[in-house]
């Protein structure tokens, strides 16, 4: 296939593969949204997905924790392996999968519950806290990591839906990290954030990378360059190019990547 991604094999060998997708195709009804994408995502790295709006980044991201199951018309083919296990295998419990692979959605979607309950929910169902004070701690830690603790510490019992757009986004980040997933999928986590908050979230991402693997969708080339080690460029449902972030941004192989990075195709 002409659109096959080109991978830097040298680098790949030295790191463990966390997620490996092979020939993934996604259809929304008739629409072919992801076209035969294969990719290997390394452990303890941050991988950025970039590409013009509507190219399939969110769609592919949602494949990784099988969130596409919830869309009636979505149909996924191909294999996705996490730690060598095929997540589409019937033996795999999507619930367990999603506990392991956390997600921050593109549109902030807090529960219509209190801020505290929004964050405490995951730890509660996964039994991450031994008792109430444990839980309080987890919530505080998560909200701090989400860079929103100071703003909400006095209003933990107010509804999460009454927050500003950016606050909701950070709340959702806090909610996702509270369950300590091994892989964190973040779909434009900073889209509604100011530079400072963005920096804090990027710091968080960097911290998470120490132990986990993070996949982030972003429209900001600068952000991709700042936080990620690997970058994949999507275009019209194809993964055009995948490799070390530095190389992609300095020396893209595919002309489409180059045009996008230099601001010529949208």
């Amino acid at each position, binding site marked *: 296939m002409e659109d096959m991604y080109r991978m830097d094999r040298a680098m790949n060998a030295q790191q463990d593969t966390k997620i490996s997708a092979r020939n993934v195709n996604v259809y929304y009804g008739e629409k072919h949204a992801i076209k035969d994408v294969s990719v290997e995502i390394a452990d303890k790295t941050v991988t950025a997905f970039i590409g013009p709006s509507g190219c399939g980044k969110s769609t592919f991201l949602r494949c990784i924790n099988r969130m596409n199951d919830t869309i009636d018309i979505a149909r996924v083919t191909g294999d996705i392996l996490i730690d060598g296990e095929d997540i589409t295998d019937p033996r795999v419990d999507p619930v367990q999968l999603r*506990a392991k692979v956390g997600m*921050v*959605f593109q549109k902030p979607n807090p529960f219509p519950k209190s801020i505290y309950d929004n964050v405490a*929910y995951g730890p509660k*169902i996964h039994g991450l806290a031994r008792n109430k004070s444990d839980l309080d701690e987890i919530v505080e830690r998560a909200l701090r990591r989400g860079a929103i603790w100071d703003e909400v510490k006095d209003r933990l019992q107010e509804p999460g839906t009454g927050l500003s757009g950016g606050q909701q986004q950070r709340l959702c980040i806090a909610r996702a990290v509270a369950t300590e997933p091994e892989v964190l999928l973040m779909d434009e986590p900073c889209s509604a954030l100011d530079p400072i908050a963005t920096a804090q979230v990027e710091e968080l991402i960097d911290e998470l990378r120490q132990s986990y693997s993070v996949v982030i969708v972003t429209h900001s080339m600068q952000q991709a360059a700042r936080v990620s080690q690997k970058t994949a460029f999507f275009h019209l449902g194809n993964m055009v190019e995948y490799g070390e972030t530095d190389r992609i941004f300095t020396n893209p192989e595919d002309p489409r990547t180059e045009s996008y990075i230099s601001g010529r195709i949208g």
Partner: protein
Amino acid sequence: MTKSLYSADARTKRRNAAERRFKAYGAAAIGIAMVALVILLTSVVTQGIGAFRQTYITVDVPLPEAKLDKSGTRDMAVMSKVTTIGYAPLLRDGLVNAIAEAGIQTDLSEKEIGDLISKEAAATVRNRVLAHPDLIGQPERFSLLADGRIDGYFKGRVTMASAALDQNTSPEKLDLADKLRDAGIMQIKFNWAFLTAPDASDQRPEAAGLGVAILGSLYMMIVVLVLALPIGVAASIYLEEFAPKNRWTDVIEVNIANLAAVPSIVYGILGLAIFINFMQFNQSSPLVGGMVLALMTLPTIIISTRAALKAVPPSIRDAALGVGASKMQSVFHHVLPLAAPGILTGTIIGLAQALGETAPLLLIGMVAFVRDYPEAYSSATGLFGDPSTALPVQIYNWTQRADPAFVERAQGAIITLLVFLLIMNTVAIVLRRRFERRW
């Protein structure tokens, strides 16, 4: 450069007029509903409130041993040989004496004076005497029900003019009743018996009460609530959240919608065939009645619950699944609370329907004349197995009776039923208000 915001342009005026019209339609719709409600309730209350008051006659009834205990040994077997028919003359004598004592003049014969006392009264006296045999010997003071026509006279239902035409009373009797009331022998009291006493036969409208019916309805509603709500919600959850969307679930869906359209009497046919004839449950029992009504209510609850589940935005489910909640957890922790108002509405309407339904009970033996209070549990009949009636049945029965005094009772029973309904639904209404929110 641009139009002023202070003055609306023609199009805006037109649109605002449409807006006002639309709002007015809404207000009018509410108005129509409320007016209908007020008219119905007013007519029910004005006609039925009288049932909660009742005329009593307080007299000393002579209890001669010669008549009530021929053996003189207080032997139950002998005493119970004297039937209510034997007691009736004693009551009459008591009233006649009281009239004489009070110095009231009347041209009525003793028998006619006796007609002022309810036929129920003899049983009241007999039961008391049998329970306390030591009363025999001297006169005892009793508060006895007055005859329904007399009672109706004090409530304005019977007039002198109507009494003149009425075979069952006469203006002279009403005249005497007036005097008795002035003399304090007759009083009008709050009618607790209406809520506690069992039904009475057509000759004693003044004695008829709702005791058995209230118990029966209560038992049935317990059964309905315990069965219909969990089953209905469970079925809806399965169909809306878990079931694969295929032919089979379409069949179930259509099927449930269709069950809602099945006339209620058909559920009675079903109950008779399945629960009584096949499963051998007791006829006339609140258990069977409750199960039948539960089946009948189920579609209402399912349809409203499904609609409510459908209305919960998918992003809430996504959010829960995204943090690793199972489908089940996302439904029970997030979706269900958000759908609660709709579920409760279905429950409120379903229970209202179940509480007021008569037709299916017709075939399973609950449209009946029952005088003994049903027990919630007995070893002979099991849980909710005693024969009983229900409030709507009592209303239906009473509206069919010949004596017009029952009209008032029926309306009084309707008031009781509505109060019962409100009490039953308060919890649901309060809960629903707590769960209501916008997102």
